[in-house]
């Protein structure tokens, strides 16, 4: 599923860039993320708790900054995670783009989230909504953090 989000951050582009490319710091803006620890250059391990009503997913996996182009204000992040208890995997790729808006910066996130296994059978609209919620909160939190 493909999602797109936009948030206006009341901070100059350079500050926003610094935050979004600092994976552990940025990850603190994703609700449900537990410790994110480095596991190599641009690579991290982390875990995310997602609650879908009574269903609790614990997604453990890797996050990597796969591309950065500061001049263009573009970065890509890839996350591969697995819930070994319920049996299911999530792969998300996020393309971030920062656009100057005067004093402020517009943050555009387009993400492609793919869910496999039993959790994918839970109901696509519900999952889509949850992913959408997470990304919205992420974008809002980034904006808040820098404001």
């Amino acid at each position, binding site marked *: 599923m493909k999602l797109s989000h936009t948030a206006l951050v009341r901070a100059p582009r350079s500050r926003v860039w610094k935050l979004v490319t600092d994976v552990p710091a940025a990850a603190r803006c994703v609700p449900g993320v537990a410790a994110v620890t480095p596991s190599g250059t641009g690579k991290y391990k982390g875990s995310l708790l997602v609650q*879908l*009503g009574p*269903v609790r997913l614990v997604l453990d996996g890797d996050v990597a900054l796969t591309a950065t182009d500061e001049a263009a204000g573009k970065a890509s992040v890839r996350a591969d995670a697995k819930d070994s208890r319920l049996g299911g995997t999530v792969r998300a790729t996020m393309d971030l783009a920062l656009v100057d808006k005067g004093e402020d910066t517009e943050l555009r996130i387009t993400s492609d989230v793919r869910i496999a296994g039993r*959790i994918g059978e*839970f109901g*696509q*609209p519900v999952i889509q*909504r*949850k992913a959408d919620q997470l990304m919205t909160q992420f974008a809002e939190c980034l904006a808040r953090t820098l404001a």
Partner: protein
Amino acid sequence: MTYDYHEPETVAEALDLMARHGEDAHLVAGATAFTLLWRQGLLRPGHVIGLRRIVGLGGITATDKELVIGATATHREIERSADVARHCPALTRTFASVATVRIRNQATLGGNLAHADPAQDPPPMLMALGAEVVAASAAGERTIALDDLFVDVFTTSLRSDEVLTAIRVPALAPGTHATYLKFLPQTADDYATVSVAATMRFTDDGEVADVRVALGACGPTPVRARSVEDALAGAVPDAARIADAAARVDADIAPFDDVRGSAGYKRDMARVWTERALLSLVEGRA
């Protein structure tokens, strides 16, 4: 992998078990939703607490003031209850339109509400009837208006230390008309593409004295259509006024795409069926 199954006989025992097992416990009544999620491997609690033996949670009682439906009353018991039919025939029909007789024989109202599926039939009707739920915890009981119960898809405002024990439906003011319309464009056994519940009462002058409209399947939770209600309050509800009010439902809903229709179609249908529901109440007044 399995779980320990407990069948307390009182609410206090149930609360005690919940306190003991915390997040590792899951409450069931009819256990329809739970069995599905368990079978799919999506729920793995260590302890399942069955509520069906708790006598105080069953049954349906009616007084002049209210109708009280126990949390473990099945949909079928409610559908067949003379008290419910006397209280509000539309409520009887609402329960009769849930899934199939097999499911209605097993699934309970408490389970239905706690599961918080936004496409379910009873919630919008109960919202339109001004119902509230009773939640018990070690600290005592509190009531939650249905309007405040649903938080998100499959998520309610019940705390993890609370048991939903009953649903209270206040007596309808004399002259109140009620309806529930379920739009099923595919098969007869389906979740609604949209559903609309409405109640309306008129003054002697034919003005709207009281109106409540709620919709199902139009977003992450069942939702009150306050914009529609506001547009009708005090009005003489002729066809034009109703059409105008129904069109405002758009502001109250946030449907999403699924196999039962695109978000855009659901918006359109929410308007159509809101209008139909309101018209039927106005016509039913005669």
